[in-house]
């Protein structure tokens, strides 16, 4: 039996087709129309998996765009989905750190992937992908370039957690002639500090999985992991973790529906 998960986030829309194994997945930018992005990424994932839409028994939608998806059977929050996805990929993981476009979350999970506690950043963008994106814009670098440069730099202290103020602070540092690599290292260090302060509320129980778009950068993973003092488990496609969790939960729904029938 085949199920699907569609995760429409603020930056990227993701979909996974699953039948106990991952059959296929896709990632596209969300753009301004979350509904269309959800439909499109679902279609692409189906094509990648070579599966017909009719063959999919259940679809779970997640991410902030989940309310706008007309084709889903159930909505489940990205917190539950990331936990489920990470626990599938890394059965020994007890903490999931997910950094996406506009959210930073630390989730405690049980062996079966159910959530026991979680904490999310407040409404500001501190410590999220958006923060990094804005800083990369100031430095005229891509996110991957920023990460690579950071590995070589001795981090400067960036005090502002607020994205807007941090941007001003970085412009000031550039004006003083501060080394660009040092600024890059300081930026990622400041995200790590934000993760650490959140994880005071939800302790980082080992082992720790790192998911979401920021985990695409090996440099970002290395610096945050070092700053927190815990090794990270990172999958080949960390952005797909939420969609995978949604697909697994959809698979469970399909299973229980079949049993009832």
């Amino acid at each position: 039996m085949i199920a699907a998960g569609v995760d429409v986030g603020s930056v990227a829309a993701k979909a996974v087709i699953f039948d106990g194994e991952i059959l296929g997945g896709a990632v596209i930018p969300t753009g301004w129309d979350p509904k269309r992005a959800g439909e499109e990424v679902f279609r692409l994932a189906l094509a990648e998996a070579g599966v017909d839409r009719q063959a999919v028994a259940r679809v779970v939608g997640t991410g902030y765009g989940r309310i706008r998806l007309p084709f889903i059977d159930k909505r489940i929050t990205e917190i539950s989905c990331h936990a489920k996805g990470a626990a599938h990929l890394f059965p020994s993981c007890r903490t999931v750190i997910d950094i996406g476009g506009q959210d930073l979350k630390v989730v405690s999970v049980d062996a079966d992937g159910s959530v026991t506690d979680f904490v999310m950043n407040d409404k500001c963008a501190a410590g999220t992908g958006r923060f990094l994106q804005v800083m990369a814009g100031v430095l005229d670098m891509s996110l991957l370039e920023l990460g690579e440069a950071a590995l070589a730099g001795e981090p400067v202290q960036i005090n502002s957690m607020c994205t807007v103020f941090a941007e001003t602070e970085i412009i000031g540092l550039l004006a003083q002639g501060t080394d660009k690599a040092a600024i890059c290292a300081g930026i990622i260090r400041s995200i790590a500090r934000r993760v650490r302060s959140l994880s005071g509320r939800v302790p980082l129980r080992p082992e720790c999985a790192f998911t979401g778009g920021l985990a695409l950068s090996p440099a970002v993973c290395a610096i945050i992991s070092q700053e927190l003092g815990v090794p990270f488990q990172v999958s080949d496609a960390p952005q797909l973790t939420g969609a995978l969790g949604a697909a697994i939960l959809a698979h469970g729904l399909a299973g229980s529906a079949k049993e009832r029938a």
Partner: protein
Amino acid sequence: MTLAALEKMKALSERNVLEINKAHDAGRKVVGHYCLYSPSELALAAGAIPVPLCGTRNDPIPAAEEVLPRNLCPLIKSSFGFAATDTCPYFAVSDFLVGDTTCDGKKKMFELLSAYKPMHVLQLPQNQDPETALPFWENELYRLKDRLEAELGAVITEADIRRAIKLMNRERMLLKRLMDLAKNQPSPISGMDLLQIKFKLGFFPDKEQGLAVVEEIVEELEELARAGHAAHPADAPRILLTGVPVGLGSDKAVRLIEDSGGAVVCFESCGGYKKIYQVDEEGDPMKALAAQYLSTPCSVMSPNTGRFELLTRLIDEFSVQGVVDLTWQACHTYNVESYSIKKHVKERHGLPFLQIETDYSDSDAEQLKVRIEAFLEMIG
């Protein structure tokens, strides 16, 4: 389903502004209160109409921010904003205001507020020590009594205070009966309806009329409870809301919890279970008022052991499945205490816990929804 008596209460409530102005024109005095620590019994004993003026709406906050700092709790900004914009008819009709030094933000705001109306600010102790704080607080209540007598041209006798205590005890007893209906499984009433009734009751200039209509609501609900009527789907997780005060307009958290499929069955906050105690009717009435009001377990007290004890009792009595702790932005005492409340709820009761830190605006509604839905998914 709609409750006939609740519809009646809404209709009556619409007349309250008119009625209070009529009473005021006929010579009745109106005394505005800002906090649960200030006993409305003294205003009642002086023959005045007590009204709650604690701000629960977002509308006047931008105006308040022309004077007050932006990063101040929305309750304080809203309370001040209503005065600054002259948009609250109950503030407008008030002859005299009573506040207390509940927290730093409030006491400094009251300094500014006293430019608008004659005002008395009670000095609230920071703990509930029976040897030191209680005699001090009793003396503060005597000072308020003297001030009310002078400002309102009234004489407050011991018999007046006793009568006022009896009346307020009846109100508190009725509110308890109302809230206890949600102990039923399933609860016959939604959290939003509970909130609405509790909130509206405060504004009846004729207390007896307010009590009578709430009594009708309670009887109607008792009937529904006997018939097994459920205000929520059978599997709705039973949520206890603790933390800062909520009212109509600052009900975002309650609304989001119930829209997401939860059932708010218990309010531990100061419009809820914190205020349904009974003041002793036998002994010295001023002593009785001082003792009961000072024991209010608000986070401004240090230590605040009463809140933990109350939570433990309510979690059991209301068969609670999850605790949501609401904190207004910049409310330091509730925000700091949340850490210990979380520990208490998780370790002592093994229950899921969620803190929400927000303001009165809807700007973060989508993000809050994610947290709340995930929290409800956790309960299962």
